């Protein structure tokens, strides 16, 4: 999952990014001013945007209004020190999905972010099951055939994205866009390495396959016969 944080308090943005990477395994981009934030939000397929309201150059509400006008469906969480009911109503009515006031609790922020992403993928249950595989997106616990499976961060990130979209064909471009922030080196062949690692750890046996390759299109998660 890829998240954009638009926040001009450099240190705060960095802390939130760090927390989201560490506890939710999200790929996180940071933008420190409104103009850049709007540009990033419009050019990358984010799964969530954490938006401050008082920003240099372009205000948070303007960014939000612009995004919605352009038809963007990305979940937006407003994170601001403006705490009046009027502000909150205005923020939600401009098109945000959630509103959290500063100072905030990091755990709450992360939980809200995860809830918004679940809703975005239309999977309200934090535990996603595909056949014998079960992924708890809240605690990042993966169990396969009843046994817990420990996955490195990138592999978990890939698996979470694939199971959220279980039953759909996911292209390699989509994987790259949703799993890497813009600081990462995007070598699409690395995706294949992670896919094969996952296949090894999550092998349902010779008769079935969990992660399928759809030739020329991408990957598909779903326990179907080989």
């Amino acid at each position, binding site marked *: 999952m890829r998240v954009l944080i638009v926040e001009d*308090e450099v240190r*705060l943005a960095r802390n939130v990014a760090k927390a989201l990477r*560490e506890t939710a395994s999200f790929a996180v981009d940071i933008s420190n001013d409104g103009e850049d934030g709007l540009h990033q939000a419009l050019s990358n397929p984010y799964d969530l945007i954490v938006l401050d309201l008082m*920003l240099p150059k372009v205000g948070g509400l303007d960014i939000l209004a612009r995004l919605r006008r352009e038809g963007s469906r990305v979940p937006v969480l407003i994170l601001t*020190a403006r705490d009046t009911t009027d502000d909150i109503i205005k923020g939600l009515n401009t098109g945000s999905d959630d509103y959290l006031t500063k100072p905030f*609790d*990091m755990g709450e922020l992360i939980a809200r972010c995860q809830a918004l992403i679940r809703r975005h993928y239309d999977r309200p249950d934090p535990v996603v099951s595909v056949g014998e595989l079960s992924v708890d997106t809240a605690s990042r616990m993966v169990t396969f055939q009843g046994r817990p499976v420990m996955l490195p961060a990138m592999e978990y990130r890939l698996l979470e994205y694939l199971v959220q979209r279980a039953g759909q064909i996911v292209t390699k471009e989509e994987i790259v866009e949703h799993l890497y922030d813009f600081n990462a080196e995007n070598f699409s062949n690395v995706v294949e390495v992670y896919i094969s690692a996952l296949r090894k750890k999550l092998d349902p046996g010779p008769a079935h396959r969990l992660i399928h390759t759809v030739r020329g299109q991408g990957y598909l998660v779903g326990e179907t016969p080989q």
Partner: protein
Amino acid sequence: MKPVSIRLRLSLLISLLTLAIILVVSVVAYVELEESLLRNIDEILRATGEGIVATLDEHEDAAAREAEFRSIMGSGSSGDSVWCRIWVDGREESLFSSGLANHPRREPLLDLLPGEAPEVGESSFLSTADEIDRDEEHPYRVLWIRRVQGQEVVNVLVGRSSHYVSHELTEFYQLLLIVGASLTLLAFLVAPVLISWGLRPIAQAGAQLQAITHKSLKQQREPSEMTPELKPFMAALDDMLDRLDEAMRQQEQFIADAAHELRTPVAVIKSTLQTAQLQRRTVGEYEENIEETLQDVGRLEHLIEQLLSLARLETPDTLRESLDVRLDALLSETVGAFDARAAQRNGRVVFSEAPPTTVKGDENELRQLFGNLLDNALRHGPRGGTVRVTLANGTEDRVTVSVHDEGGQISPDTVVHLFDRFYRVDSSRSQASGGSGLGLAIAREIAHRHGGDIEITSNPQAGTVVSVSLPRG
């Protein structure tokens, strides 16, 4: 004492006014009626009197006169209600008399002559009504003519009962009393209703005003519904409410800004600490987190300091005590304190020596004022630039201190807002530049408290100049 309501006051006033008008009208009507009734009698008396006088002139013979007198007295026009007596001055018996026998008081024309006799050759009307109580049972009115006839002075006295007049007048008087009293009472009863109706626009305006709360100060009242007299009053109230609303809006803005400014560093600190807590970190990471937290706490501390100092400065409005302050020495010292800061930015702060100058004021506040200005100049001026402080003995009674930096990109629209609390050139509240946004507000507050003023000019050629003018000590 309980204040008397306007309604009661006006009711009483209207009632009194009504009473006064009724009184005047009554008196006039009464007098008119009396005069017209008396005029009737007087005309009969005059006609009879003239007839008698003409007879006196025409006939020498006593018997003929008598016959003529009788015919005059007996004529239908006068009737027996007219009395008559004719006599000559100095003689006891009358030349002629008529109707006196029928009179209940036999001698009305002899002994009860009301008033003085007229001059010889004159005539005058006399009335018992003028002299005697109106309730007298038999009031009458007489015409007394005195004229010279040959050698003698002949008196002709013609009289008539004025009982009818006094009766009429009494009735009219009673009528006036009843009608007058009723009208006054009616006025007193109807007046409150009319006054309520008259005061209704005020009551409505009052209801409108009552509906105003601190949240609806700016709601415009409907001017078309208002009576013209109230419009200026309500317009003035609207103006006042607008000013109040503006003041409240500023206050709310200030509180919102202050809340934002206070929350942001707290949010940063909390996020740093909670992120550090997420998992076990290296000592180096912890040290870094502590360092960052201390910086943010310092920033919070500075902000709280500035807020408190602003609150202190705003009340009271004027200086509690004001002493002579050597401005040149104070500036030199303040500039010295900023040397190190300037050097960090490869710049410098210069104070051009000035002659001894004294102002009246609070030394600490003035130091804070110029400290804030220098702090701003260093913060917003270009790196490596020079900040110049000059002290000019502008006029007789004022001195001007200018702080000049080599910046100069502040647009005129922005300059007017620079003294607003929490105003930052960038709409962002980011404290990357480190200022609290209160420095200039505090500086202006201090300048005003000292009876001075502060202004900023900025253009790309000359840079930015902040000038403080203070009254000379």
